[in-house]
């Protein structure tokens, strides 16, 4: 009888039961405990997002239910919250301010960041590429309050000198600042999207005799389309939600802009500037939180669509 069958027979007659394989030693309990902790931390992001929505709504909901007239709130441009007798809360002008600044910023930033991403991902190589990537990453790290300061003390006098205007704090100033701010972020997202296109696509095209540009234009760009669009959307979200830079560079005047040299005021900046003087729980305070709910919902939708668009690429 071979040893193997002997061993098998022993095992078959072995009296060990399931209990012997039960290893509820301290390590087992530690494992279970940590699995629990890890899970709680894992879902913390969801809890925090819900918490943000809950607490911002909690402070602002009183106004929404009791006094808010949706038509007046969204469709009139009159914002005079500190008027003692008849305060007016119309955010149309503020929305116009945010939209004009974000729009101009994207006009500046989107083509340049896509161009830069294509150059870094497809044309540059070796040391140039590494250096550019590091530089873009560092530029993305400059804090927004520093950008605001730049808009205030460097761009402002430059614009006054170049365009001969009385005040240089305007849509143009904030648009440029916001564009410069969003561009590095969009560049690195777009570069990631281009890098995510498998190399065998490029190799196949090159084997057919395509030049580098033909490969990019006919193969890489169509394949990376969704990722690029997602990156642009995230950039829009960034610009839309930016606070300090917009507060300092727009001129902070409630105004529907007629030209890029007009001063405007953004939704985010309004909260930042007025929350300090609003009485906690008062109407003005609640209105500022209502704007917060609006900002939260809009960025949520932007982020959600960016996520869905990028995900489309993986399924297709």
């Amino acid at each position, binding site marked *: 009888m071979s040893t193997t069958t002997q061993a098998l027979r022993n095992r078959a007659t072995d009296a060990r039961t399931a209990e012997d394989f039960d290893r509820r030693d301290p*390590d087992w309990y530690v*494992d279970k405990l940590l699995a629990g*902790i890890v*899970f*709680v*931390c*894992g879902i913390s*992001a*969801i809890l*925090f997002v819900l*918490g*943000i929505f809950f*607490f*911002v709504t*909690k*402070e602002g909901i009183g106004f929404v239910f009791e006094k808010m007239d949706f038509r007046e709130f969204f469709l009139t441009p009159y914002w005079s919250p500190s008027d003692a007798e008849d305060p007016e809360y119309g955010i149309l002008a503020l929305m116009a301010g945010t939209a004009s600044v974000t729009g101009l910023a994207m006009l500046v930033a989107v083509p*340049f*960041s896509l*161009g*830069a991403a294509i*150059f*870094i991902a497809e044309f*540059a190589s070796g040391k140039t590429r590494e250096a550019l990537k590091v530089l873009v*990453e*560092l*530029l993305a*790290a*400059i*804090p*927004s*309050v*520093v950008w605001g*300061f*730049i808009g*205030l*003390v*460097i761009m402002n006098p430059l614009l006054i000198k170049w365009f001969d205007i009385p005040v240089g704090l305007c849509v143009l100033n904030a648009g440029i600042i916001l564009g*410069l701010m969003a561009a*590095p972020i969009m*560049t690195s997202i777009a570069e990631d999207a281009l890098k995510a296109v498998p190399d065998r696509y490029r190799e196949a095209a090159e084997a057919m005799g395509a*030049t*580098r*540009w*033909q490969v990019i234009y006919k193969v890489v760009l169509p394949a990376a389309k969704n990722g690029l669009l997602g990156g642009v959307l995230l950039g829009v979200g*960034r610009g*839309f*939600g*930016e*606070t*300090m830079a917009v507060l300092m560079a727009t001129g902070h005047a409630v105004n529907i802009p007629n030209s890029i040299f007009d001063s405007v005021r953004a939704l*985010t900046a309004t*909260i930042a500037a007025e929350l300090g003087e609003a009485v*906690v729980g008062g109407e003005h305070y609640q209105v*500022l939180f209502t704007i*917060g709910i609006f*900002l*939260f919902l809009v*960025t*949520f939708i932007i982020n*959600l669509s960016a996520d869905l668009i990028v995900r489309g690429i993986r399924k297709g």
Partner: protein
Amino acid sequence: MATANPTMFQASDLNQHNQRVQQRYRLLFGLMTLLLITPVLLILGTLVVKGGAAISWEFLLTAPTNGMRTGGVFPALLGTIWLVTVALLLSVPIGIFAAIYLSEYAGDNWFTRTINLAIINLAGVPSIVHALFGLGAFVLFFKFGTSILAASLTLAVMTMPVVIVATRESLQAVPQAFREACWNMGATRWQTIRRVVLPNSITGILTGVILEVSRTAGETAPIMFTGAVFFTPFLPQSVFDQTMALSLHLFVAATQVPEIAEQVPFGIALVLIALVLTMNSLSIAFRMWLRGKKKW
């Protein structure tokens, strides 16, 4: 026998045309990259030149004087250190555990997608909305008052995605075979994470933590109403005190103080940028060193 076709290896007109088109686009995109980077470098250069004049040990180590018109930034610098330290103590452990969950425990299903979406949102919600959240939740609801604790909690929630994303990436870079080998020795899931996965990814996690320091130090809006004040003559003694902060100090010096000596705000901006960029460079250098060292 057959003589080689002399034109076989010559570029045809079409080839040459395509080459020219490629060169043109290469130049165009290169110029765009340059145009994107040059203005920022010029601006940074201006800040360094103008702010450099203000920087001295005295500037870093004394308090503002004469109604903030002159003097140094010491209370603001110290306040930023307080805020960043407390925020990191809160967000780094939770962030690392969250990344462990996503990388080691979570399956590829709708629940994990929801968590990922929440992380993207946490990073994408406007900073001023985080400020409203911090005010409503930590200052008023939990009654911490405007304090370092409330401000740091707000910052922690806001910047946590930085740690989560960096940690998750470095955890996922550890080969699956390492884990399987450990499991086969009878180790529990946590023992495997603690003894094999974390030691192999700790440097990558550290890059994320350094990045978070930089993000946290630069934020202004979330701390404006939760714990940072324009000016206070007192240095913070505990997490329940209010404090000045470098980022808010720059905003105040640039917009709220009339007749301020011109080099003061430039000096503050330079200190802030130097702090943030040093942290980022450190993180990048760390990552490159790590990549060169990687054994698998």
